[in-house]
């Protein structure tokens, strides 16, 4: 790539092997502030595994990860989250028996470094409760704040997942199929939110998504994964018209 700036997050020769199976194979990729990169590829291509490597849930077999030039390959999951590597999960991954509001508040207080505060009460924290409500409002869940998360619909849980990522206010946003399983009328709110993040200064967005219309609206760049390797990377229109992409991706997964 020709961008002069330091990448927000970058992978260098990144690989992970599960037994004999190489799920991510020698991937080098830089992601920059202000850009939304859509990551595409058939199921099992290694997209989620790539995210797991970037956010630290998995340790690579080889290769490095840099965050604004700093080597974070050995950082723990929580450390990466603290410095601004934010992640929303493909399979809904929440605190099911806590309220919707509490789920978001946990994200807000994590950002505020308030976790070890045991002398004050959660209800008293200045600003925290208001911010939690602010982010719930953004995904239209404010009215459901008191409900247990396990009682929410699938679509609402997906929205909550997004609200928690927003509440972390990270530098790097990783969305893993945020609209999967949502009803058609729930999708636009997510698209608008991602659009709004793009407009904020100094944010890099990585988006795994299958819906082509969403990608057309949002993507500045497309990276195609196949069998753990990056087989195409570049301008959306160029990438989508490459024969190899038509073969492996459009031919199989979407047709």
């Amino acid at each position, binding site marked *: 790539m020709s961008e002069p700036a330091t990448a927000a997050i970058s992978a260098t020769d990144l690989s992970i092997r599960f037994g004999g199976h190489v799920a991510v194979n020698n991937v080098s990729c830089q992601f920059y502030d202000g850009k939304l990169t859509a990551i595409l590829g058939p199921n099992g291509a290694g997209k989620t595994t790539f995210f797991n490597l970037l956010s630290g849930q998995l340790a690579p077999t080889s290769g490095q990860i840099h965050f604004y030039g700093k080597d974070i390959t050995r950082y723990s999951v929580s450390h990466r989250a603290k410095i601004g590597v934010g992640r929303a999960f493909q399979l809904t991954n929440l605190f099911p028996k806590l309220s919707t509001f509490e789920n978001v508040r946990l994200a807000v207080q994590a950002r505020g470094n308030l976790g070890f505060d045991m002398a004050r009460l*959660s209800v008293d924290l200045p600003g925290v409760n208001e911010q939690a409500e602010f982010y719930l409002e953004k995904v239209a869940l404010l009215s459901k704040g*008191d409900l247990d998360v396990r009682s929410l619909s699938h679509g609402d849980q997906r929205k909550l997942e997004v609200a928690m990522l927003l509440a972390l206010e990270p530098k790097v946003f990783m969305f893993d199929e945020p609209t999967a399983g949502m009803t058609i009328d729930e999708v636009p709110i997510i698209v608008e939110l991602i659009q709004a993040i793009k407009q904020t200064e100094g944010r890099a967005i990585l988006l795994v998504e299958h819906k082509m219309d969403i990608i057309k609206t949002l993507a500045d760049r497309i990276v195609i994964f196949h069998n753990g390797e990056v087989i195409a990377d570049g301008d959306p229109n160029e990438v989508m018209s490459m024969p190899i992409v038509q073969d492996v991706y459009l031919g199989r997964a979407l047709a």
Partner: protein
Amino acid sequence: MKRLISYDLPANAWIAALVAAIVLILAVLPLTTPSIRSVNMAAKIIVFIPLAASFILLIGYTGIVSFAHTVFFGIGGYGLALGLLNSDASVSGMLTGLMLGVALSAVFGLIIALLSLRIRAIYFAMVTLVAALVTSQLASRLTWLTGGQDGVSFDIPDALSPGVRYWTVPFSDVPVTGKVLLYYALFAIAALSFLAMLRIVNSPFGRVLQAIRENEFRASALGYPTTWYKAVSSILAAVFATIAGGLYAAWLGYVGPGSTLSLNVLTDILLIIVIGGSGSLYGAILGAVVIIVSENYLQSLIELLIPVSIAKSPAGTLLSGDRWLLWLGVLYVVAIYLVPEGIVGMTRSGGRPGDRRAIPGPNHSR
């Protein structure tokens, strides 16, 4: 008032009323009855409430299932006892002993937490059970330090001993002795401990503990170093259990393996948690009352209800008062079936509907 209990009200009005009634009875009991048996029972309840609450902090809020909790209770008892023995029964000696115990427990609590990260749940539970038994054995063997199997009897500071008489309650004619004063010291410290724990579980820290229990993977993805949270929580639970152990020894004027470290104590704690539920600290209050009262009175109650003639008949052996432990067991099994989440858990969901009502405005200073 609501601040005092950290806006964490029992889930339902009945339970709230029950808790209030229990606290009230415990608060006035020694002024209304000269019955030593009742007052001893009340004191045991007072001690076991923070003990069980600290276990709920560990098991219910942090999800660490450890059977080594009696170890902390024992350390508190022995710490206080040795402090008094080595200081001619002075208050400062008592506090020093207890503080040393607290420090030792904190270290031990940290070790427990680190072990729980290394060993998977079921093996960890077994390891902690072994640790509890080994500690009990150690206390029985290290006679020079602990008095061995017989334990240690010691003198409590004069001001708190039964021999000192301060006053006589006008209507009940009950004498207010140093022992009654000691009762209220226990009550105050236990209440403070309980309120402190209530605050901890309703603080940002407590919310993180709940998050870890629910989904540790996700908690770390939000940026919480879960290992440290577990360690701190385990240390806190250990500290509160140690304080409870000190209170119990002070009340009994005695500490021994049987009163603090034995399986009976562990069984008591577990029964309290099962009956009261581990989802809320209030479970400790209800559970402690149910279990300790039935231990004390089930035998008499059965003897009272079942005439001797029936009890003596072959079919009646099951109904004789000596079988109270059996009936406690039955009560326990029934409780597990009927109220799997305990009395308090029964009506409470994990979400706290009250949470958002109490939000102060942005310019609220606290």
